[in-house]
């Protein structure tokens, strides 16, 4: 347990630097840790005090006539899975937002990225297209246009229907500009190649 919560005494919390207990935390003013002199302020929440007394969820034994857990037939069912409808006990029930999932559905949802609450990473294709389209143009890295231009167009088209950022959405405006800048790069590269070939032929 990282934070020490002592029953019957003021709630202590551990200094994040030296791990020793500190008292009198307020959100208004900074206090110094007595050991490492780190300046801290902030707020303690009820979860710290309730951590010690929190019971471990094991699931209750089923009695005669009780609905039982799909995975543990000896345990009483507490919830039904929001996806498959299986009965699950307190041990198997996985609450996410306002829904409850069984371990199997949770695992498959995580695997397929279906639950936004569990998505660990997303590629924001619109932003990727914009960066690939714009950065080589503003830095005038024309030898790379042949790579970055088609890449920007590809990212914009490929990512058009893909799920976007959790917080900013698909960023289709950025994707559109990425597409435009990518096309400009391709045209600029072709024009440069034609110009160079013409000048060498004239010589």
């Amino acid at each position, binding site marked *: 347990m990282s934070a020490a919560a002592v029953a019957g005494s003021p709630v202590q*919390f*551990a200094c994040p630097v030296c791990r020793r207990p500190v008292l009198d935390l307020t*959100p208004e003013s900074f206090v110094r840790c007595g050991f490492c002199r780190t*300046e*801290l*302020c*902030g*707020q303690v929440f*009820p979860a710290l005090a309730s951590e010690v007394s929190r019971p471990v969820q094991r699931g209750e034994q089923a009695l005669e006539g009780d609905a039982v857990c799909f995975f543990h037939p000896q345990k009483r069912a507490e919830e039904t899975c929001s996806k498959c409808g299986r009965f699950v006990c307190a041990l198997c029930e996985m609450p996410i937002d306002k829904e409850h999932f069984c371990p199997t559905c*949770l695992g498959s949802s995580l695997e397929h990225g279906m639950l936004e609450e569990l998505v660990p990473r997303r590629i924001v294709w619109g932003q990727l297209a914009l960066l690939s389209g714009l950065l080589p143009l503003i830095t005038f890295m024309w030898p790379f246009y042949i790579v970055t231009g088609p890449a920007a167009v590809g990212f914009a088209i490929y990512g058009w229907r893909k799920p976007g950022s959790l917080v900013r959405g698909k960023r289709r405006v950025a994707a559109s500009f990425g597409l435009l800048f990518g096309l400009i790069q391709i045209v600029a590269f072709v024009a440069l190649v034609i110009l160079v070939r013409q000048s060498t032929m004239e010589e």
Partner: protein
Amino acid sequence: MSGPSRQYEKLPGRTSHVVGVARLWAHADHLLATTNYFGIENYQRYYFRDIQTLLIRRTKARMWWNVGFGSCAALGALVGGGFWFASTRVEDPSGKATLIGFAVLFGIGAAFCLICMLVNSARGATCALVAQTAAGAQSLPGTSRVRAARRTLARIAPRILEAQTSAPGPQAPA
């Protein structure tokens, strides 16, 4: 639909890196820390019911940045001044122009560092916002200034309290 399917509220402050940006967002029941590196967005969730303490820990980053910027500004001014002084002692017009050019170049560099130092000072003290849960203490990305951290704390503390007082108790993380 091009917008996000879930509603997240942007919290004050952001941390910029060379190729990415880190931010904090609030949802109805959790904090979402996002770090975006060149179009790849990583997410970390901190559920309100699990947060035991939110700490603002002062750091010395502002001081060290100021030391860096100040040193560069002083060095630039010194070298620029040296070139300027040397230009007053050179008779050859082309040599003089070159030395003055170098002096101006170093002067601009020194002024840029000085502006960076002033902006860094004006943005306020630096800090780390630390969320402590039963799994340990973790620095939340996206909040590196005390002012922004205080505003973030003021906005999310009531929600955390509400989540923890209305719920029967912290539940196992999903």
